[in-house]
C-alpha cells in the first residue's frame, strides 16, 4: 500500500511543475466487480485470463499506449498481488512515454469505491480515459478526445463522453452478440447528448418509460436499441468528485450514468461518441469471451491480433485459413487442425486428433483421437486419448483422463481432474474450490434476489450435508468420475434460465425457436390488444401508478375473452342466449359495466366482420351488415341505456382511428347501418355529436364524416317536433 502511494505522491509534484500541458491519463480497473467469470476468478483475476493466448490486460494496455495515453493507473483489487506481479514481470513498467502505476485496494467492492479511492490519491489532473481491464479495442481516441474537449470548453457541465458502437441485438432473445442485455439509449441527434440509458429493460413487456420532460425539453430525440456500449469513457476530473459526493454510486452505468441523467439539479451532461469501422467490445461474460475471441481471430481487432502482438519470445504465425500457430508445435501427420484456430507454443497433438475453431494455449498435451471443437484451452492442459470437448473453457493445469467428455458450456477451473470416461454435463462449472456460500468482498452487494437465492441454496446444502455427512469426502472425490478431482458447482442466481445466455456454447436451436415463438406471441398480443391506448408506446409519465397498469391489462384480458367467446359462438353455432350468458358471466368475473360489455361485443363483431371480409373477399360493408343483423340480439341486452350506446359509438370511433383503419372511410355508412338496425338510437348519436362539439379538430374527423347523417337526424327530429307542435 505504501509504495504506490509514495510514487504517486512523487508524481503529483512532478506534474504540478508542468501545468501547461497535462498528459493524457487513464484509469484501468483491473477488477470487474462481478462474479460472471466464477469459478475461474476465484483463483485468477479476470484481466489475466488469456484471450487467444494473451492476457486480456495486455490488449487493453496496448490499446491505451497506441491511442496516445501517457499515464495509466491500474486499479487492482481482487487478486491484486497476481496482477501486480504479472505487470512487474512484463515489459509494461519499462515503456518509454507510457507510465504504468498500480493502485492497490483490498476493501473496494465496486467501481464507485475504486474511483473514490483514486480521487483521494489525487493523481488525476485532467481528462482521463476510464476503462476496465477486459476491454478490447483498436479505436483511435483522437476524434473522441477532441470532441470531448471542445464540448467541455463550451459547456463545463459536459463531464463525460461514452463510446458506443452499432450492433444489432438478436431480436429473439433480446441480447447482443456479446451476451449483454438489450440496450436502449435516447440520444439528441444534433448535440449527441445522452438523454436516456436503460440496459435492464424488462423484456417480457417491451415497455419503456420515458420522462415526459424528456420529450418536452428536447426538440428532437432519437431512441436507439441497435447500439452497444463499449465501456470506454472519456471523463473530466469532475467525474471523480461526483463519485465522492454521491457515496452510494457503485456501478458505473446503473448508478452513475443513470444518476446523472435523472439528476437535473446539477445539470451534468453525458455525451456519446459513436465509432463505425473501429472495434471495441468488453468481455462481460463467457459469451462475450467467446465472441471477442472469434473477432480477434477474424482480425477485426487488427493490429491487436496474435501474429502482430508478439508478447514474449514466442512468435505466432498466421497460416492459411486463419490458423495461428506458435513455434515448436509438434503435431502428428494425421491430426487435423481446422480453420480459425490458434495453437500456442510447444503444444503436442497426437494422432487422428481433430481441432476445430478453438484456441489452445502453451505447452498442452493432446493425445490421440481427441476431438476439440469451439473450445478455449489455457496453458499446460493434458488431454488424454479419446476425449471429446465441445464449446468448453478449460483452465491451466487441467487433466482429462482418457475418454472423458465435456458437453457444451462446461467450465473447468484450474487443475481440475476429470476421471476416465466421465461425462461432464452441460453448463457445469467445475472447480477444485468449493462453492463459496457467502458472498465475499469481490461481489456487488446489492441485489436482494441474489441473496435470497443464496439463502435458499444454503438451506438445500444443509439438508444434503446432514444426510451425507459421513461420506462427504468420498462423494467429492468421485464427483468427477474415477480418479477425478473437483467440485461441480450447483447453479444459483438466475439458474437454468440464464446459463445458456452467458455460456460459451452456441445457443441451442430449441432455445432460439422458443424465444422466436414467444416473440411472435408477443407481437400478436400487442396487435390484438391495440384497441387500448397501445401500451407499448411511450408512456407520457413514468409515475403511472401500478394500479393503472393492472387495470389496463385486466381490460385487455376482458376484451380478449369476449372476443374469443364470440368467435367460438360463431364457429360452433352456439345459440345467442348461451352466448349472452357467457358474456354475462365474464362481465361478472371481471367486474365490468354493461357499457364495457357492449363495447367488447361490438368490437368482437366488427373484428369478425373484417376477418371474414378479408378471407372471403366480399365487400366489407356487406359483411358488416350481415354480422350486425345476425348478432345484434347479443348486443342489444347491453344497450338499454343511451350512455351504453354512446359507449359503442365511441368504441367504434376509436377502432376506426387506431386499430382497424379499414373501417375509417365507412364510418358514417356503418353508423347509419347501426341506426337502421336499431343498435343505436338517434338520441345517442346526437348526444355523441354534442359531446364532441368541444373536442379538438383531430378528434372530430368522424363527427364531420357523419355530419350529413347528423344533420338529417336533427332535421327529422325538428320535423317530428314541428309535427308534434302542429298536432
Amino acid at each position, binding site marked *: 500500500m505504501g509504495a504506490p502511494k509514495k510514487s504517486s505522491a512523487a508524481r503529483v509534484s512532478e506534474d504540478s511543475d508542468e501545468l501547461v500541458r497535462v498528459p493524457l491519463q487513464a484509469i484501468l480497473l483491473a477488477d470487474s466487480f462481478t462474479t460472471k467469470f466464477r469459478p475461474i476468478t476465484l483463483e485468477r483475476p479476470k484481466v489475466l485470463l488469456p484471450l487467444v493466448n494473451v492476457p486480456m490486460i495486455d490488449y487493453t494496455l496496448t490499446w491505451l499506449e497506441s491511442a496516445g495515453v501517457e499515464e495509466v493507473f491500474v486499479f487492482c483489487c481482487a487478486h491484486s498481488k497476481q496482477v501486480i506481479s504479472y505487470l512487474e514481470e512484463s515489459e509494461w513498467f519499462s515503456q518509454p512515454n507510457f507510465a504504468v502505476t498500480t493502485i492497490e485496494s483490498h476493501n473496494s467492492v465496486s467501481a464507485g469505491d475504486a474511483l473514490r479511492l483514486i480521487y483521494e490519491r489525487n493523481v488525476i489532473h485532467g481528462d482521463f480515459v476510464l476503462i476496465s481491464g477486459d476491454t478490447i479495442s483498436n479505436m483511435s481516441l483522437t476524434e473522441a478526445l477532441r470532441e470531448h474537449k471542445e464540448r467541455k470548453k463550451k459547456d463545463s457541465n459536459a463531464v463525460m463522453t461514452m463510446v458506443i458502437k452499432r450492433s*444489432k441485438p438478436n431480436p429473439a432473445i433480446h441480447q447482443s452478440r456479446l451476451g449483454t442485455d438489450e440496450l436502449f439509449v435516447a440520444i439528441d441527434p444534433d448535440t449527441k447528448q445522452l438523454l436516456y440509458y436503460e440496459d435492464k429493460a424488462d423484456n417480457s413487456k417491451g415497455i419503456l418509460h420515458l420522462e415526459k420532460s424528456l420529450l418536452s425539453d428536447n426538440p428532437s430525440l432519437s431512441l436507439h436499441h441497435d447500439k452497444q456500449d463499449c465501456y470506454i469513457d472519456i471523463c473530466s476530473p469532475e467525474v471523480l468528485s461526483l463519485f465522492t459526493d454521491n457515496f452510494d454510486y457503485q456501478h458505473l452505468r446503473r448508478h452513475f450514468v443513470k444518476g446523472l441523467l435523472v439528476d437535473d439539479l446539477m445539470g451534468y451532461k453525458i455525451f456519446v461518441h459513436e465509432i463505425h469501422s473501429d*472495434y471495441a467490445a468488453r468481455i462481460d461474460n463467457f459469451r462475450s469471451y467467446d465472441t471477442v475471441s472469434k473477432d480477434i481471430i*477474424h482480425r477485426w481487432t487488427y493490429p491487436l491480433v496474435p501474429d502482430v502482438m508478439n508478447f514474449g519470445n514466442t512468435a505466432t504465425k498466421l497460416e492459411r485459413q486463419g490458423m495461428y500457430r506458435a513455434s515448436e508445435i509438434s503435431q502428428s501427420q494425421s491430426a487435423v487442425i481446422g480453420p480459425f484456430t490458434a495453437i500456442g507454443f510447444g503444444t503436442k497433438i497426437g494422432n487422428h486428433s481433430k481441432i476445430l475453431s478453438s484456441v489452445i494455449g502453451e505447452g498442452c498435451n493432446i493425445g490421440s483421437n481427441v476431438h476439440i471443437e469451439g473450445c478455449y484451452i489455457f496453458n499446460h492442459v493434458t488431454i488424454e486419448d479419446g476425449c471429446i470437448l465441445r464449446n468448453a473453457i478449460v483452465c491451466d493445469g487441467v487433466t482429462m483422463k482418457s475418454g472423458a467428455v465435456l458437453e457444451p458450456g462446461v467450465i473447468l477451473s484450474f487443475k481440475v481432474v476429470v476421471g476416465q470416461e466421465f461425462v461432464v454435463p452441460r453448463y457445469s462449472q467445475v472447480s477444485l474450490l468449493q462453492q463459496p456460500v457467502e458472498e465475499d468482498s469481490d461481489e456487488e452487494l446489492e441485489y436482494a434476489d441474489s441473496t435470497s437465492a443464496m439463502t435458499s441454496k444454503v438451506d438445500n446444502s444443509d439438508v444434503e450435508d446432514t444426510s451425507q455427512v459421513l461420506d462427504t469426502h468420498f462423494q467429492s472425490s468421485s464427483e468427477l468420475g474415477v480418479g477425478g478431482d473437483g467440485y461441480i458447482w450447483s447453479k444459483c442466481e438466475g439458474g437454468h434460465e440464464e446459463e445458456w445466455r452467458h455460456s460459451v456454447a452456441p445457443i441451442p436451436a430449441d432455445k432460439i425457436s422458443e424465444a422466436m415463438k414467444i416473440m411472435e406471441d408477443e407481437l400478436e398480443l400487442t396487435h390484438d390488444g391495440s384497441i387500448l391506448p397501445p401500451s407499448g408506446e411511450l408512456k407520457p409519465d413514468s409515475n403511472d401508478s401500478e394500479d393503472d397498469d393492472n387495470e389496463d391489462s385486466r381490460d385487455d384480458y376482458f376484451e380478449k375473452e369476449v372476443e374469443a367467446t364470440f368467435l367460438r359462438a360463431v364457429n360452433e353455432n352456439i345459440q345467442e342466449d348461451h352466448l349472452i350468458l357467457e358474456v354475462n358471466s365474464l362481465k361478472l368475473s371481471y367486474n365490468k359495466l354493461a357499457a364495457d360489455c357492449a363495447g367488447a361485443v361490438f368490437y368482437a363483431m366488427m373484428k369478425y366482420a373484417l376477418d371474414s371480409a378479408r378471407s372471403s373477399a366480399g365487400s366489407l360493408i356487406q359483411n358488416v351488415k350481415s354480422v350486425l343483423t345476425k348478432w345484434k340480439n347479443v348486443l342489444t341486452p347491453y344497450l338499454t341505456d343511451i350512455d351504453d350506446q354512446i359507449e359503442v359509438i365511441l368504441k367504434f370511433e376509436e377502432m376506426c382511428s387506431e386499430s382497424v383503419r379499414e373501417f375509417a372511410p365507412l364510418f358514417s355508412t356503418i353508423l347509419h347501418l347501426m341506426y337502421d338496425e336499431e343498435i343505436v338510437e338517434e338520441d345517442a348519436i346526437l348526444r355523441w355529436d354534442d359531446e364532441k362539439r368541444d373536442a379538438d379538430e383531430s378528434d372530430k374527423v368522424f363527427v364531420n364524416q357523419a355530419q350529413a347523417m347528423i344533420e338529417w337526424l336533427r332535421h327529422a327530429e325538428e320535423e317530428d317536433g314541428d309535427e308534434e307542435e302542429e298536432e
Partner: protein
Amino acid sequence: MVIFFSITMPDVQVFVNDFVNQLKKRKLEGSQATAKQAAELLRSVISQQRVPHRNPAAALIDAVKAVGEQMIAANPVELAVGNIVRRVLHIIREEDLSLATAAVAGLGVTVTSDDEDDVERDDHPVLSAAAVAAAARSTLRPPSLQTLLEDVPDSAAAPHTASSGGESEGKSKSVEKGSRGRKLKHDVIEAVNELIQDITTCYEQIAEQAIEHIHQNEVILTLGSSKTVLEFLCAAKEKKRSFRVFVAEGAPRYQGHLLAKELAERGLQTTIIADSAVFAMISRVNMVIVGAHSVMANGGVIAPIGLNMVALAAQRHAVPFVVLAGSHKLCPLYPHNPEVLLNELRSPSELLDFGEFSDCMDYASGTGSLHVVNPTFDYVPPNLVSLFITDTGGHNPSYMYRLIADYYSADDLVVKRRPMGS
C-alpha cells in the same frame, strides 16, 4: 547475447525498441520512410559499437545482425527493413575487404613475417593466410557489372587506402591495428550515409527517367497510390509532356482517390476508374506504371492487391507493364520462401463496418457464417513485368538477380547470428 548488447549500448537500444514497437504496431507506413529510418538506426548502432582490435568487421556484423534480427522479426512483411539490414552488412564486408586488400598490397611483407601476430591470434592460427586468401579472392572476384559499365576499376579505392596504410607504417603496430578498426568504422559509416542519401533521393533519381518513358498524348494507367509513381508522372508533366492518367481507385483502401486528387492539382488530366473497370479501359492505355511493395530476386513483384489483375489485363492487350522501385525495395529473397509470401491480413473493417453486419457474425446463435478476408499484397510473376525502373535505370525482370548480387552478399541472406562463444 541480448543482455550483452543492452549493457554495451543502452542508448541505441532505446531507439531500437522504439522502432521495433512502431513496426509491431504497424504505425510505420511506406517502404521509403521505413528503410531510411532503419538505415539511420543501423548507422547509430555502428557508430556506438566499440571495435575490438581483432577482427573489427566481425564485431560490427554481429552488432548489426543483433539489431537487424529484432527489426525484421517486428514486421516480417515489411521487407525493406530486411533489405537495409542486409545492405549494411554487405557494406561492412565490402569495406573490410577493401581495407584488407589495401593492407595486403601495402604491408604484404609484414603480414607474412609477423610471428608475434600469429602467436597472439592463437584461435585463428591461419589468419594471415586467410587474410591473404580473402584479399586474393577480392582481387580475383569478377568485377560487378555495375562497375564494368561505369568503367571504374574495382580496386579504385585500393591506392587511396593503401596510402593511409603507408602513412601509419612508421607507427607502432597496436596503434596501427586500432586505427584500422576506427578506419573501418569510419568507412562503413560513410558508406551507410551514402545509402541513406540514395534512399532519400530515389524518387528524384527515378523521376529523372520519366521523360524517356512517357511520350506525348499517351494514356497511362496506375493503381492505388505510390509516391514514386506520383513523382514520376509529375516529372514528365514538368517537362511539358502532355498525357492522360487513369487511376484505378485501389479498393479497399481507396488510396487511388488521393493520388488522383494530387495529380489533378498538379494539372494532369486524370480519370478515376473502379478497379474492376481496368480490363475495360486497358485497350485505350499505352502504358501501365505502378509502384511496388518489394521486388524479389526472381523479378517477381510483391505489390498492393489488384495489381496481378492489372498485369494480366496489360499482357492480354500487349500494354507495357512498368514497375517503379527504389533500390531499397530490391529483396535478395525468392518468393518461394513462405516467410516472404506470407501476406499481411489487415482488419476486415476496411471492407465493411463491423456494426453493419454484427448480426451475421453472431457466431453464438449459429447465424455467424460470414467471414471477411482482407489481404494487403498481390504477387505479380516476373513474366508479366515488362520493365523495372530503379534509381540506377531501367532493367529487365531477368536482370534483377544480377542487380541484387551487387547490393547483397550471399552470406547475409539469412540474418541470424551464429551461436556465440561455446
